[in-house]
């Protein structure tokens, strides 16, 4: 653990947006914008930060295991993996919903087991357990919308941002499980030893 604050950014638009927010708050690191670089970590010792891009679903793991002191993770990832971390603030960006979606006109038949395709088996299992509905979960890693079209599943549990992909595939959201947005998470041990720096940075984001 170095004295720099190690920040795991999720690859993609959300991570870029958060970096821009941090840069505007004085935590910039110019070399991160160099598109030709093959470097994996970017540091600015003067500002006391080191950034690295990771797959969005891996941010929580990097933070929980202490490779990153803080990170930006969607509430979906936090709910799915339940990492033992501090969730310091809701950044209010990257907003979407975790939904149950089904082919248009779908009717739940309680005489048979509901098949649910999802990238988020824990969230889906928890949701249906709270309603005492018996389900068969099919864990997929992508193209979830394909599952009900090909009759692989009755419904899907997935993130819905605009709902455009669903509409184009004759699907519709039938239930919102939980609203999702980006959260600032921190490793519990790092927070003990870098508290001042982490609090200052968190304040710059909200």
């Amino acid at each position: 653990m170095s004295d720099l604050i190690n920040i795991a950014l999720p690859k993609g638009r959300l991570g870029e947006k958060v970096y821009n927010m941090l840069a505007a708050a004085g935590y910039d690191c110019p070399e991160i914008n160099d598109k030709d670089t093959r470097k994996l970590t970017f540091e600015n010792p003067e500002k006391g930060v080191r950034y690295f891009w990771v797959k969005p679903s891996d941010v929580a793991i990097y933070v929980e295991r202490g490779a990153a002191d803080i990170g930006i993770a969607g509430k979906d990832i936090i709910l799915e993996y339940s990492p033992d971390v501090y969730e310091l603030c809701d950044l209010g960006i990257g907003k979407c919903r975790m939904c149950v979606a089904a082919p248009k006109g779908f009717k739940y038949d309680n005489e048979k087991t509901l098949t649910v395709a999802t990238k988020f088996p824990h969230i889906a299992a928890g949701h249906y357990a709270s309603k005492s509905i018996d389900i068969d979960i099919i864990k997929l890693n992508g193209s979830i919308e394909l599952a009900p079209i090909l009759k692989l599943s009755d419904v899907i549990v997935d993130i819905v941002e605009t709902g455009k992909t669903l509409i184009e595939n004759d699907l519709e959201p039938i239930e919102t499980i939980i609203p999702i947005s980006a959260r600032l998470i921190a490793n519990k041990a790092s927070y003990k030893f870098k508290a001042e720096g982490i609090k200052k940075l968190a304040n710059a984001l909200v």
Partner: protein
Amino acid sequence: MNNLDNVLKFSEEATFKLRAIYESRGYSHYKMSKFEEYDLYAGNKDFLMSGNVITFTDMNGRLMALKPDVTMSIIKNSTCEKGGLEKVYYNENVYRVGKSGLFKEIMQTGLECLGEIDLVSVCEVISLAAQSLAVFSDEYVLDISHMGILTGFIDETALNDEAKRELIGYIGQKSVHAVKEVAAAYDLAQKSVNKLVALCEIGGDFVTSLKKLEPLCESEQTIKALYELKTIYEVVSAMNVSLDFSVVQDMSYYNGIVFQGFIKGIPENILSGGQYDKLVKRMGKKQGAIGFGIETDLLERLPKNNKKENDGIAIIYKSGDDAKLLNECANKLRADGKRVLLVKNLPENRSFEAVYYFVNGGLEEIE
């Protein structure tokens, strides 16, 4: 080789130092078997860090478990008389599911104080927890929380049990935004919200934290808990302790002080403990108890755990060489405190300070 400093790993040396500290306070070593009847854990699974237990059937058809926890075995076997105190420490392997989702053998050192627990015992155990952390590193923090304050503030909201559990989880995550969302959903009074937010935000310097906490403690339960925290601080003020209510434990088992210890360089808490009178009572005993456990395996993460700079000296000999002369040569080096390995072929993946051939009854160094 008489100097154990060169042989013991940092974690092994630390374990011996912990034993010395606990013995100096009159705690006795508690040795136990690796197995326990599964029934012991079945009724109190939530007390375990993971509900998964490795089980097997013994020769008499009883369902047994490889110990996932030491505390429950100590409580079960406690013979503490009324008014007395039983103070024990242990170094045992326990078997639990780790973060990877697989079973792990974990070396745990800890202590338990059972009997009529008073503030003297509480202060002693907290002080021993801080001293234990100081053995590992000067850069440590012992976070102290009190279930009396936590449950006191939460009970004042008069929410249902599910919402209370939710709030405790959010306080454990220092999630002010989530606490405010729950408060808004249940239309909690602003006074209650302020108290719950304070629990998320309090941290760092103990004295400042106590000052922030004091005006919020109004009920008999929270005022008593505040007094306990103040007394504890008077005893351990010279140590790196902080007040932090993100240390939360299961309300069904813990009732008083709870705490967690962190070492710089280790990405998770290495020490965890608290007062768990409720568990003792659930197990049919009348006394209370306080204790803590340390996962000493985590010390491997510290760079200083591997003290060996190299693998010492290697002497390469051939079959038929004079065993007596060879041993004399090696012992001469060992007498100077060197580690000496006798081999026929130099092993790979080892780094030696020097390598010698044994030739004509003497040693020839290889560059």
